[in-house]
């Protein structure tokens, strides 16, 4: 049986105008992502990975082309509809965690669960990422890896259909990075969440179902992994 398509992009283009400079961040991307798959977007800095992820997540608008989430056209949505889309369907993990410094780990998670339709308790989400013991700590009292796991807990607590992660291990050392990837892989396996991870770290591609290579705003090629490695089996 053909797996259910979650994202379908056609001719997706994004042009940034910064002062006098025009930057073509995406240049006609065609792409399909399927339910429950773990995808790694790989490419050098400035290749357009983050732009693609931002448009998939409803954080930004495309200049032209279409992008559908299931039967929902993201490219025609207004601000309000995108906000609801993010609230109900998408979980984000950012490279620099983007935690609210004045809230504890648990509270950072509640920030999301309070506005979600069917969330899990924040404590459960934190236990899923192995942080059950440290939920009353403030971001400043947590290590980088721990902060990133809080960010993952925050993203998954609302049981999103897609989890979009922009360089989740970018600021972490190898060992800590592996823990974070384990958390992502287990969420993907246990909750069936479609997971997209951006990285320019080639080692990570081994844990994905599919690896999409991006260069100069286009999809260079796509590789399906015959055999996936567990996060614990990789290092960098």
């Amino acid at each position, binding site marked *: 049986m053909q797996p259910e398509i979650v994202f379908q992009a056609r001719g997706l283009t994004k042009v940034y105008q910064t002062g006098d400079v025009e930057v073509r961040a995406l240049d006609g991307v065609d792409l399909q992502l399927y339910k429950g798959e773990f995808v790694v977007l790989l490419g050098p800095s400035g290749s357009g990975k983050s732009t693609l992820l931002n448009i998939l997540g409803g954080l930004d608008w495309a200049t032209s082309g279409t992008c559908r989430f299931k039967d929902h056209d993201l490219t025609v949505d207004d601000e309000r509809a995108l906000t609801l889309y993010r609230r109900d369907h998408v979980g*984000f993990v950012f490279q620099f965690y983007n935690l*609210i410094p004045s809230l504890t780990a648990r509270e950072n998670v509640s*920030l999301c669960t309070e506005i979600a339709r069917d969330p899990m308790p924040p404590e459960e989400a934190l236990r899923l990422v192995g942080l059950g013991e440290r939920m009353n700590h403030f971001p400043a009292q947590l290590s980088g890896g721990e902060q990133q796991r809080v960010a993952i807990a925050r993203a998954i607590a609302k049981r999103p259909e897609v989890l979009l992660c922009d360089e989740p291990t970018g600021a972490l050392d190898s060992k800590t990075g592996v823990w974070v990837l384990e958390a992502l892989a287990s969420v993907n396996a246990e909750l069936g969440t479609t997971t997209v991870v951006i990285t320019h770290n080639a080692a990570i591609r081994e844990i994905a179902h599919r690896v999409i290579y991006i260069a100069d705003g286009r999809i260079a090629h796509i590789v399906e992994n015959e055999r996936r490695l567990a996060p614990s089996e990789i290092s960098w």
Partner: protein
Amino acid sequence: MSTLDRKLLRDLRHLWAQALAILLVIAAGFATLILGVGAYRSLEQTRAAYYERNAFADVFARLERAPKSLGSRILEIPGVVAADLRIMRQVIIDIEGMSEPASGLAVSLPDFSPAHLNQLTLRAGRTPEPGQSSEVVINDSFARAQHLGPGSRFSAIFNGRKHELEVVGVALSPEFIYVLGPGDLMPDDRRFGVLWMSETALEGLFDLEGAFNSVALKLLAGASESAAIAQLDRIIARYGGVGAYGRKDQISYAFLDSELQQLSAMSRIIPPIFLAVSAFLVNMTLSRLIALEREQIGLLKAIGYSRLAVAAHYLKLILVIAILGSLVGAIAGTWLGRGLTALYGEFYHFPFLIFHRDPDIYLLATAVSVGAAVLGGLKTVFAALRLPPAVAMQPPQPPRYAKLWGEGIGLAQVLSQLTIMSLRSMVRAPLRAVTTLIGVASAVSLLVMAMFAIDSVEFMIDVSFFRTSRQHASVILAEEQGPGVLQSVQNLPAVMRSEPYRSVAVRLRNGHRERRTTIVGQPPGQDLSRIVDSEFKVVAPPSEGLLVNARLAEVLKLRRGDIVDVELLEGKRGTKSVVVSDIIESYLGLAAYMDLDALNRLIGEGPRISGMHIAYDRRDEPALYRALKSTPAFASVQLQRISLSKFRDTIRENINFMTTTYVVLSVIIAFGVVYNSARIQLSERARELASLRVLGFTRSEVSRVLLTELAIVILLAQPLGWAMGYAFSWGVIQGFSSDLFTVPFLIETSTYARATLVALLASAASAFVVRLRVDRLDLVSVLKTRD
């Protein structure tokens, strides 16, 4: 409590110092409006109520002697509802142990019915028994100044006869809120008192049985005052009437009115400026403070919070600060306003006080303070909300720096890289520098505006007492005399120089405009009493024509060369036309001068003088006083030294109470603004500065980048602040002048310097805090954070 609300509380706790500074700025602006307007309205209402309750008369007139039967004719004047016929006459007061001559005004109290008008409020004791010529009620300020009370005794000279008096009561009167001795410019409570005595007793003492020499009228509301004055003048003319006048020419009323007018000028102009400035500063500060939240706003949006929810969150933060600030302002303003009103009530000798608290000023202040805060904060929130979350979560684009003008010509070699960094940041992010600059300048301007009034008053004193009226004393004759009397004054002990003058009560008229004043005639070549023109050059009265001061010229719309009608209110009466030969500078009253001979010719009764200005040797002062006291021809003596100190006390105190409060509030605003500007500047550039630390720059080098920028902005703000302060002050001074005083506009350099000093102190304190913060910059986090 929702997690967002918890974030709000934590943010507030984290930002407490800045939030407190903003709160205080709001509170100061708010409080200024409440206390300024509140105190003024309270005093205004108290005055109105006092005049109403104690039946303060509307029209006053003095005459030589008229039979009481004239009263029925006076009551027939249309619009008159009550008339009090009284005896009022100057007496010389002799108090044991007091060397300077003192005088008083004896006023009759009806014996068998209470007075209809100008009723006394007894502070102590009782009114005199009918016919008891030794019992006297004295005015409260005289009682205090002389430490007199019921049971005290002193003597006074009535009609040349010394008479022992016993104080039986102490009272306040709406007619004598301010009491001026003859020729005095300012009240001197020690040397002039009001003596209320039994009518029959005074009739006996002054040989005025069955007669009166003063009348006070109460008019129906809406009745024509000028018509009543004209009719009364016609009735009393043949009894030696000296021109009836309304409240505005009644000295106590005019005095109080001029003082209240100064307060009004200060409360109509200064508080709105304070409030506007504080609103502007809060607006600016909050908008910059919230700009720092841009990434968090982006995050909240990214995880699915709606615009409305994010805006509401920050709105709450702003409202907490703005509402608390307003609350503190309202409480402090009410409390200070009450204190200030009580202080003024005491100063004006009001028997009671009405505290006035209109909801309108509270509503206005709240609307302005909260509105400005909300607009300032939400402006930035919405700007951040308009950005796609992906963009908002990244730091703003770095400003596009470029080389500075001057760097090409070798400036770069002279200045260090760090200084260049400060300069470029200022020039390339001008909005930040400009908002700080305007904020600091506003604070400086408030300080200038709060402090300048004293400068103007001091300048007025300098011109009045040291450049024009330079005599040590003025001797006022009981009756006008021929010039021969000059010699007897010259022969008094200690007198070194004496100069005669004549003053004549007149009504000056130009078209429908008229004013009651006196024309002073003096011979040319006077050294003590001098007349100066608008450039402060001494001028002699011309052999023909009238010199008028700028205020009189303004109220009568007179220019040099105009013809003015002079209605003589003394002697042979009649109206003459006189040409205005020049406009002169004199800040006291409605001054009009003529050459003595010209004035004598105008009146046509031969040469007469009403008094002498004298200079004397201070060492022989007691002998002079003794001689003056023992000469009945000299009705009283006005001592310039005492007038000067009273002048300072009265006007300065009147202004001081309020300006002191304003100064304190503007200091708070100055500190609030500078502190917040420095702190926000630090937050805006924290990352950059921490990077410098990581690169190996020392703490003091890194703080220098920020502090150099701050110092340049603060220094540049000073001239702008002075200019704004000058403009605001000019607005205030416009409302200061009355017919009694014209306040010249002058701001001393020292006032600008003091304002700047306060701003610099605030800056130094803020710089210190910023320095401490730079020391605590988190170097590790900056390495982990994106750039």
